[in-house]
């Protein structure tokens, strides 16, 4: 029931918004719809019991002859990601009101459509339904970036589309192949997929195909080349949706599909995925240090941070998976906050070039304060949300190999370097001509930042609630691996 409301409400809102002309009504319906959606998901959290793993099951027969059902449900990992989606979407929508995008009905309609697709991905308990929502999320994402994006957007967003679409086609092939290996009567239902009979060789191929699809979406080095350009040119709201929520579809897919379906292949090839993730952490951090554009810096920082998440997943340890789950939430919150701040700075300074922004803190102390908190969260200072996730992830990696953990741990040092460097350059020092005249953050601009900052600190101080939610689901996955 709740899953049904969560799926239908954004769809309904987006259809209404598409047909509206009046900007006020568009704003009202998009914000009201997304806030109600958040409240519904909170109510879902209230009803959710941590004891049993798959709840709120919605099962609608669709194609009887092939045993394809529209099967949705929620377990400990997916409820957290659904909450992340419903939490961030109203903030992103509210933040976008300040930007006066052209064609608002299309813009907000597409955002609501994307929200529905995200929730569909996170709650699908059927392989084919997962795939359908996975692709459905791509279409609005493409149009948001391509229509409202910056320079050279056509070429860049097209590259993004081709990359991710090709990746997901490989996932489709392996899903279909799996279907015929499931116990009779064949089905795409997730427990059937888990029970598929595969030889080690077949598992290897399935692993590769799935890995390709998820690695492109996340992105894991060396499949990341679409990401920095796309994040840079996308409109602020588009980057937040991509970085804050969409890439979690990839890491979620790793946990939901790759780990339980191909455990044998993981023993053989898992090291490669782990090595690629850790290479990505270091490679992207080093590049981030050299970036001059704030948004591009965040894009590379994101590759590095999600590299750590996927490394944690491929350790196949309880700690690694717990860390990955909580870090998915934290990363989504932090990067959205940072992108809001960058967009506010850009609005004031008319540029994102780090060298042309100086000494903003003198005129805009509140902006600087919010920026600082989010930076610390992103670096992973104790009592911020980044800390607990990174700690668990590194702990998980150290259970596999202490030297790998040491290498991966460099991410904390590196991120401190580029984040603090960016902060020092832009906020501290003597104000230049433009930053002497900037105004501080206004009340409406603060509104989306406040919940984010609260979450940064809350998760940092009381992570147990979130870990407790995810733990049974993770244990279930661990049982399937071994």
């Amino acid at each position, binding site marked *: 029931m709740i899953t049904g409301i969560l799926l239908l409400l954004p769809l309904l809102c987006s259809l209404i918004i598409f047909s509206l002309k009046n900007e006020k009504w568009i704003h009202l319906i998009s914000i009201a719809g997304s806030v109600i959606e958040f409240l519904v998901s909170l109510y879902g959290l209230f009803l959710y019991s941590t004891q049993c793993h798959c709840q709120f099951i919605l099962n609608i027969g669709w194609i009887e*002859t092939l045993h394809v059902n529209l099967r949705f449900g929620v377990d400990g990992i997916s409820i957290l990601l659904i909450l992340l989606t419903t939490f961030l979407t109203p903030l992103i929508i509210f933040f976008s009101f300040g930007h006066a995008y052209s064609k608002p009905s299309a813009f907000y309609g597409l955002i609501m459509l994307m929200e529905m697709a995200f929730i569909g991905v996170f709650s699908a308990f059927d392989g084919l339904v997962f795939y359908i929502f996975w*692709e459905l999320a791509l279409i609005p994402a493409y149009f948001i970036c391509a229509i409202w994006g910056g320079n050279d957007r*056509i070429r860049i967003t097209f590259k993004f589309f081709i990359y991710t679409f090709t990746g997901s086609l490989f996932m489709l092939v392996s899903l279909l192949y799996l279907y015929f290996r499931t116990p009779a009567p064949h089905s795409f239902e997730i427990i059937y997929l888990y029970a598929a009979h595969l030889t080690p060789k077949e598992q290897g191929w399935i692993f590769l195909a799935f890995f390709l699809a998820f690695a492109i979406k996340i992105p894991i080095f060396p499949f990341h080349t679409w990401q920095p350009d796309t994040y840079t040119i996308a409109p602020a709201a588009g980057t937040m949706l991509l970085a804050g929520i969409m890439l979690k579809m990839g890491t979620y897919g790793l946990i939901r599909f790759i780990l339980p379906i191909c455990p044998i292949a993981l023993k053989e090839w898992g090291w490669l995925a782990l090595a690629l993730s850790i290479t990505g952490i270091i490679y992207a951090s080093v590049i981030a240090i050299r970036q001059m554009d704030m948004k591009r810096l965040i894009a590379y920082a994101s590759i590095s941070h999600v590299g750590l998440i996927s490394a944690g997943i491929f350790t196949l340890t309880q700690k690694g998976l717990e860390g990955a789950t909580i870090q998915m939430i934290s990363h989504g919150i932090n990067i959205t906050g940072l992108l809001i701040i960058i967009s506010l700075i850009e609005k004031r300074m008319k540029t994102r070039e780090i060298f042309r922004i100086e000494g903003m803190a003198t005129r805009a102390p509140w902006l600087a304060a919010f920026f600082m908190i989010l930076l610390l969260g992103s670096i992973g200072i104790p009592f911020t949300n980044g800390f607990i996730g990174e700690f668990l992830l590194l702990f998980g990696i150290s259970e596999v190999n202490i030297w790998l953990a040491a290498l991966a741990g460099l991410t904390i040092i590196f991120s401190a370097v580029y984040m603090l460097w960016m902060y020092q350059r832009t906020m501290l020092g003597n104000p230049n001509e433009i930053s002497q005249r900037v105004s501080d953050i206004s009340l409406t601009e603060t509104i989306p930042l406040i919940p984010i900052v609260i979450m940064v600190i809350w998760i940092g101080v009381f992570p147990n609630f979130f870990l407790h939610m995810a733990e049974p689901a993770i244990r279930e996955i661990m049982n399937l691996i071994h």
Partner: protein
Amino acid sequence: MLTIISLTLLGILILAEGILDKKSWHLPTILAGLPISILLALTGWNQNLHFYKNMLIVDNGSIAFTALLIFITFLIFLFAGRYYKDVVRPLDDIYAILIFALAGCVMMTSFGNLIILFLGIETLSIALYVLAGSHKEAITSNEATLKYFLMGSFLSGFLLFGIALLYGASGSLNMDEISRYTIREAGHLSPMFRTGLFLLIIGLAFKIAIVPFHFWAPDVYEGTPTLLTAFMATVVKVASIVALFRLFNNCFSSIRDIWAPTLWILAVLTILVGNLTGLYQPNLKRMLAYSSISHSGYMMLAVLAFSARSSGALLLYAAAYSVATVTAFAILILIRGAKRNDLYTSFEGISKKNPIEAICLTIALLSLTGIPPLAGFMAKYYLITTALEQGYLWLVIIAILGSAISVAYYFRPIIAMFLKEGDGVKLESGIAYKTNIIFLTILTLALGFLPALLINLL
């Protein structure tokens, strides 16, 4: 049988209206007559009728495909009024020939004898030679008809020669008889029979435009009047594929080992060449020609992977492909009307003044690409599942690679419409035309959500 008679009568009625000079009666007559033909076709459901000593066999499969073909023709006629709005000369000949061509298509879906197959193909082809050249003043149209006629009549020779050799070897033209012959002689088929079989494949491959017998298609499509190109790309293509499907799976199913590798190679070539060449086309009409070539490659998957489900999958695929293609052609007609050409540059910025047309074309192209949850995806999904079931893993991988490539050219008009700045022309589409386009788009969406409607028919 009733369907063929009713369609022929409908054609004659149009000609009679032409003699009486009642031009405005044509379209209402056709739009009323085609649904009646569909109903007449459906009366034979579940009866498995045989006519004239098995010359025509009307089973559920042929009824479903017949109804689909007539329905697509109906959809095309919905746009005929607007397309021929400014034409002064009488149109009864064009409309009547279209209907006669459709009657030929119906014969191709319900033949029980190779002669009927040949008659159907010739009825269709001769009508198409005339239709391709029906825009008499345009040199491109004349070029198209000449090319099509020379190539077509040459390849009809192959087809007939193939049929003759099969007759020589098996002593019958009846499908059941030939099927019995192949079972009897499975181990040691005579060279005459094999040669006949391959000549038959070549002849049909030409009609479907399968690589490497596809070279006529882009030129002919480009020169033919756009509305008739839509007919060629959908009805004619589907009818030919269905003929291939019916012939090989009813008649030659016991000697799969002989023809399956050939069709496998042809399917791979068609998918790859169709999609790769599609990338280099300067305008939408030629692009749709290559798109139709690559889609015939996908539909060959159904021919190869014969199982209980493959005819349902082919039906869904044919429906999804045809509906999306007709939508694309309908909007192409508008663009050609406004800009006098259909280069991709003509699409730039049209989404501003014409959001409905732009969105409908986008959905049609996305469906052709195979993006869920649209009809094209569900159709491709079913086709691929049936192929995988029969163990064609590599063919499936190539088909999927093909659709990854196809994104590149299906997105060119979308990018042009939404992302580029243009002169903002308002397309002259009336309310009726718009409604029809929206109706087609809803069909594309509905087939995506409820594919079981068609799949479970067969």
